[in-house]
């Protein structure tokens, strides 16, 4: 396979984003950009899919091999990232026009971020990890600040930018130490050196914890979550959806690659040594904190921000389990990420559809009685909330089921982790159901502003697509799990 063919999903998104920039610069009709960019992203996802199912070569082309993997896992993430980004571009098509924010730079930035995320999820070298991470992050900082006049947006963006640069610096420091400890920058070489016992072990351990800190920041795990609620609240809703699905998916992809490929040796990946205990503790704190803090939110975007923190905690359980039952656990994490992508787009999309210009639904009170006034707009909201909660016929249920199952198979010491996770998700049910209670069982206070549902073909398309996948992944989960298993098998 030629390197061009192997890189084609990346090239399509990269050249596509430049095309979108040019169209934006020379055309006055901005709303078509939404169709153009989602079409390009869907095309990239389709190319990734056909590369995968058309038979990947056993080896990545030599010229790419040290930096980017072209394996089943990277194609899985290409599909998830491009699909998620395409749905967000559709949401933006409706949202930006409704709220009079129509500016073309949103789409080119979104695609460049997706490009960075794709590089990050297939990176096999510390250098490409860092380049991918920064390409993705710099764009996301701008997306958060997209509503330039709003103080909240600027506050969120500055917080995210400062903390994010700090986290990136820690990650870079860790990478430098890892290079010092092993003499390699490619993940495979680092892994082999550590396994052969040729590495400076103390230094490698320090480097590992620094890398974990940097990546935990990106997935917004407690205690590196401080920026999440502010950035999620300040960003425009389609950008929030993008951050919560694409950035998270890419960060988990690189976390799996780094931890398993570099630190897969028995000492760094043991039940009581190395990264599994660290990540287990982070997972517990993240789940408990995320779920409890979400209860106290009156703003729905902040609630969803804490919910995304909580979900990062559940996914981290899968990451921990990967130290023993690698295939089962990695495939569970991949399935979860895909399920979370569609569920979260559905949740944020429903929030978008519940608002018109000047009457955006922001708090629970705004939603009071909205389900009675706009039953069709409330339907996707219900499906999204049930899926995030983990209710059976939806994608979210099987995501949790596979992750917990992997943890139970991994180690008897992990039972308590699963017990805490189940209790945490029971707490989570409270605030997800609260949305549905407000939609249908509350009447708005007299004189209070009432949310009015918008009419937008773009948003409806995105909602229908994501609702379809949420239900299909919940009804025939085995097809998707098979895909995830095939993707996980590529990771060594």
């Amino acid at each position: 396979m030629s390197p061009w063919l192997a890189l084609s999903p990346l090239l399509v998104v990269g050249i596509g984003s430049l095309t979108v920039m040019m169209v934006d610069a020379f055309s006055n009709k901005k709303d078509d950009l939404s169709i153009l960019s989602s079409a390009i992203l869907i095309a990239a996802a389709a190319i990734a899919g056909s590369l995968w199912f058309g038979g990947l070569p056993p080896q990545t082309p030599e010229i790419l091999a040290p930096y980017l993997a072209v394996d089943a896992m990277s194609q899985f993430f290409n599909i998830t990232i491009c699909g998620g980004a395409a749905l967000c571009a559709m949401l933006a098509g409706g949202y930006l026009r409704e709220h009079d924010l129509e500016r073309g730079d949103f789409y080119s930035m979104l695609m460049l971020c997706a490009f960075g995320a794709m590089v990050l999820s297939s990176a096999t070298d510390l250098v490409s990890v860092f380049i991918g991470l920064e390409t993705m992050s710099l764009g996301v900082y701008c997306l958060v600040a997209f509503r330039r006049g709003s103080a909240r947006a600027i506050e969120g963006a500055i917080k995210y930018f400062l903390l994010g640069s700090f986290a990136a610096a820690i990650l870079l420091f860790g990478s430098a130490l890892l290079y010092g400890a092993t003499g390699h920058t490619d993940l495979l070489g680092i892994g082999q050196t550590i396994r052969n016992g040729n590495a400076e072990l103390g230094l490698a351990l320090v480097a590992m914890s620094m890398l974990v800190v940097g990546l935990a920041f990106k997935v917004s795990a407690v205690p590196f979550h401080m920026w999440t609620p502010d950035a999620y609240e300040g960003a425009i809703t389609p950008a929030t959806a993008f951050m919560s699905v694409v950035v998270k998916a890419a960060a988990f992809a690189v976390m799996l690659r780094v931890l398993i490929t570099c630190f897969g040796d028995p000492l760094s990946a043991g039940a009581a040594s190395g990264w599994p205990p660290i990540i287990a503790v982070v997972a517990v704190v993240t789940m408990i904190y995320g779920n409890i803090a979400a209860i106290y939110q009156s703003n729905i975007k902040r609630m969803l921000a804490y919910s995304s923190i909580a979900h990062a905690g559940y996914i981290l359980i899968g990451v921990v389990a990967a130290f023993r039952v690698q295939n089962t656990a990695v495939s569970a994490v991949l399935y979860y990420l895909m399920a979370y992508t569609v569920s979260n787009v559905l949740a944020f999309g429903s929030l978008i559809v519940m608002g018109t210009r000047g009457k955006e639904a922001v708090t629970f009170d705004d939603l009071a009685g909205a389900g009675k006034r706009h039953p069709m707009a409330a339907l996707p909201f219900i499906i999204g909330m049930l899926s995030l909660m983990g209710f059976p016929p939806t994608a979210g249920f099987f995501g949790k089921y596979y992750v917990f199952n992997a943890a139970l198979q991994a180690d008897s010491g992990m039972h308590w982790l699963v017990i805490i996770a189940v209790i945490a998700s029971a707490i989570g049910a409270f605030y997800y159901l609260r949305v549905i209670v407000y939609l249908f069982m509350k009447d708005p206070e007299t004189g209070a502003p009432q949310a009015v549902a918008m009419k937008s073909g773009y948003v409806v398309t995105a909602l229908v697509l994501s609702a379809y996948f949420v239900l299909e992944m919940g009804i025939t989960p085995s097809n998707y799990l098979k895909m995830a298993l095939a993707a996980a098998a590529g990771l060594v």
Partner: protein
Amino acid sequence: MVATYLPLLIMILVAVALALTLFLLAVVLGNKNMTPEKAMPYESGQSTGDARHIRLSLTFFLTAIVFTVFDIEAVFLFAWAAMFRELGWFGLMEMVAFMLILGVTLVYAFRKGAFEWEK
């Protein structure tokens, strides 16, 4: 190991102790008559007050950012030029791709009015 670094430790301790002592002495012995000038934030001898009223045009920053981008481009061009023979066609193609991407951004910045000083 310990013997090598012991002097360093002692030096750090002495430095910290000295700084603390002087600071505490100043707090205890110094007389404190507050004047408005003293109450102001210290900005390296500059008096605060007027400077924040100067408003800079946003175009200023745009130009600065665009300059930085193309300055960095020149840095990469130098490195490539130094290795031109070794890199051969591969390097040339890489550089053409790089320049093309930057060219697109230049056209974009131009069309978006980043270079119009008067708006």
